[in-house]
């Protein structure tokens, strides 16, 4: 049945890896030894544990003492095993933070993840940023439009159109069947944040587009048909800009529900914070556009938006990194941890620059760039933190097991699963 080539290869590699696992494990280089290696233990420790095992088995009444003497042996073995694992990880990723994490106790099926991790690629993380950027820019543009700050209005509207177009590209590109993107428009389901998001985008996108096109009024000739259009465009743009700004907060925050309404442990449990982080990140990135594009005289509101956005973002990120216990871990470790830490630094730097360098165009532009970069990093950090939590069965099993145990002891029921879960 099975083709000999790949199977043989795979199995040889499997055995080689087994043999190379380390000196604390028996050398298994020859399949013939599979039944005989009981006597061919490779180290003193192995022989000792084997002897204990045999005596423990021979005297069932002595199990308690034998078990307690073995416990030490196991502890030693666990620590070497953990060392081996860290070594491999270190080589693969070059990150050393995992070393500090104590191993959580849980059982699993060959250590394989229980959940299927998100199939969303980097483009969804990028969409989280561009969607937020579009929302923040539209709010900035509407503010500029209503308070007579044309530089903010123009920059906000143009950025919003660019960002929402990029969002559409990212979203369609990530589908398994991009040609069927319009199937999203078959239904409107409040239980599906993606469906709600589709409709929010459907309302927001054209409005943002019209508002941005209206900015072309300035370059049109004064007379003729185009002149007529040039006179009609500003009021249309005005209305469209307000419509876009009206839907923008929904566009920026629904993505928090989009991620939270999944079984991905670190996303789901962070549901109170994700919309806050994303709202803050959207405000900060919108503010960044304002700081980049507007002269310091007009950029005052952008500076204040930056402060508000950074405050929301930093508060939310701090909460998810500390409040969730074990499920905060993916946001602190590895690549997501590095992304979020870098994002935090850039946010703080961007806000500081915006406030301190309020007379300098250059400092303002640098601060704006820092805020935009911070928003990108935060979105990718949150995205990949969740992905990491789905890939390790520990984050699925341990919190659920704690829940079961708490119910079992709290309600004083026998070891029966027929216990209504605490709501």
């Amino acid at each position, binding site marked *: 049945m099975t083709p000999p080539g790949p*199977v043989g290869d*795979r*199995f040889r590699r499997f055995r080689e*890896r087994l043999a190379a696992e380390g000196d604390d494990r*028996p050398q298994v280089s020859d399949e013939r030894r599979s*039944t*005989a*290696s*009981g006597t061919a*233990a490779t180290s003193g420790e192995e022989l000792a544990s084997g002897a*204990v*095992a045999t005596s423990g*088995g021979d005297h069932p009444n002595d199990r308690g003492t034998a*078990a307690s003497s073995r*416990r030490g042996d*196991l502890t030693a*073995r666990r620590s070497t*095993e953990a060392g*081996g*694992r860290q070594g491999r990880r270190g080589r693969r990723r070059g990150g050393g933070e995992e070393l500090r994490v104590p191993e959580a106790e849980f*059982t*699993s*099926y060959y*250590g*394989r*993840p*229980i959940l*299927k991790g998100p*199939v969303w690629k980097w483009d969804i993380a990028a969409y989280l940023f561009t969607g937020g950027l579009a929302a923040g820019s539209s*709010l900035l543009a509407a503010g500029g439009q209503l308070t007579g700050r044309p530089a903010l209005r123009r920059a906000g509207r143009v950025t919003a159109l660019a960002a929402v177009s990029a969002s559409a590209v990212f979203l369609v590109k990530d589908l*398994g*069947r991009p040609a069927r993107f319009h*199937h*999203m428009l078959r239904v409107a389901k409040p239980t*599906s944040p993606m469906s709600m998001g*589709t409709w929010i985008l459907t309302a927001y996108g054209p409005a943002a587009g019209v508002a941005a096109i209206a900015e072309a009024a300035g370059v049109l000739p004064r007379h003729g048909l185009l002149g007529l259009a040039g006179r009609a465009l500003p009021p249309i743009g005005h209305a469209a800009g307000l419509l876009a700004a009206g839907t*923008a*907060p929904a566009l920026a*925050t*629904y993505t*928090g*529900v989009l991620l939270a309404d*999944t*079984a991905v442990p670190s996303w*789901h449990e962070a549901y*109170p914070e994700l919309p806050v982080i994303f*709202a803050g990140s959207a*405000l900060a990135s919108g503010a960044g556009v304002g700081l980049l594009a507007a002269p310091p005289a007009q950029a*005052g509101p952008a500076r204040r*938006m930056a402060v508000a*956005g950074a405050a*929301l973002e930093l508060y939310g990120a701090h909460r998810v990194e500390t409040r969730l216990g074990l499920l905060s871990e993916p946001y602190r470790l590895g690549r997501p941890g590095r992304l979020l830490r870098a994002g935090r630094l850039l946010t703080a730097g961007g806000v500081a620059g915006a406030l301190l360098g309020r007379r300098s165009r250059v400092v303002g532009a640098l601060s704006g760039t820092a805020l935009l970069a911070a928003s990108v990093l935060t979105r990718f950090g949150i995205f990949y933190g969740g992905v990491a939590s789905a890939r390790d*069965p*520990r984050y699925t099993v341990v919190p*659920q097991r704690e829940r079961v145990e708490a119910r079992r002891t709290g309600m004083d029921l026998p*070891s*029966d*699963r027929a216990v*209504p*879960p605490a709501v």
Partner: protein
Amino acid sequence: MLPDPNSLYGPLDPAPDAGYENAPPRMGFFTDTSVCIGCKACEVACKEWNGVPESGLDLLGMSYDNTGALTANSWRHVAFIEQPRPAGHRTPPFAGTPTDGSVSAASAAAAAGTSERTGTDPGVPTGTPSAAARMAGGGPADVLGAIAADPTAAGRGDAGPQFLGMPGAQPPGRGTGVEERTDFRWLMMSDVCKHCTHAACLDVCPTGSLFRTEFGTVVVQEDICNGCGYCISACPYGVIDQRKDDGRAWKCTLCYDRLGAGMTPACAQACPTESIQYGPLDELRERAAARVATLHERGVPEARLYGHDPNDGVGGDGAFFLLLDEPEVYGLPPDPVVTTRDLPKMWKRAGLAALAMAAATVAAFVGGSS
């Protein structure tokens, strides 16, 4: 008609809630793992009937299980767990038998590192070696307490016969003499889509591709699915998966086409030991309760049901199981909760965040002097 207050969470009969009038009784599976012999006839029958593509021909190095997990190309998956502990019946012949670990922690750890090109995404991802090593010794939450009193089984496995991911041709102890003989048990379980009462995959599907059938099961319409992947991250059991070459999500349909014709689903039809039983869910639940009582009577106190309870986090499964160990040993979540339980709170938080955003913008433009 107002939606049922339990539409998102709590006990519910799903078909009437989905709008069916005079729906037939809810149908489902009861998979009794205590009689599963690991023949994989269910996997084969499912593939045959449903035309599911092949899911890779490779050895995972983990026991007899070379399927690895439920994927878009494997709608039934037989899990194999070898445990260093006596089988259920503690009969006199076993009493004086030396017990020892039969699964080597080292080989379990190495097996965790294998994966398979199933043609699906995420398919069968690799596991964590240290977590796999622990499964050889059982968990702290063992019902019998056998492992809690004997925690070194994982370590001691090294001294016994080496388990290379393939069981030996001889019974334990024959090749090594009685001193080295081991006592162990096999756990085998045919896993499948649970057809939850509150199906997160269905709730989050933005195209309406996933739907509730009149039998209370959950089915993907392949002509609608656009491969957005939302159902995949929403499933608390990690069942539904995406086929790479066609981009759509696929899972067990509980043989919707056969059900409509009054036939038994292919896997249940093929099961030679009636480990997979198909029928009206109420009847299956009664049968399962009776089976657990029988097993407890016969000295198998670890037998327990999984997914049978309409009050659990997903409102009860349409496909539930009789297990002989904790669910996570089989790769099942110990306490799955449908993600939409918290959805109203999520929307509320998003609304508050949106208001905060609007307020901050207004304040930024009105509040300052520059």
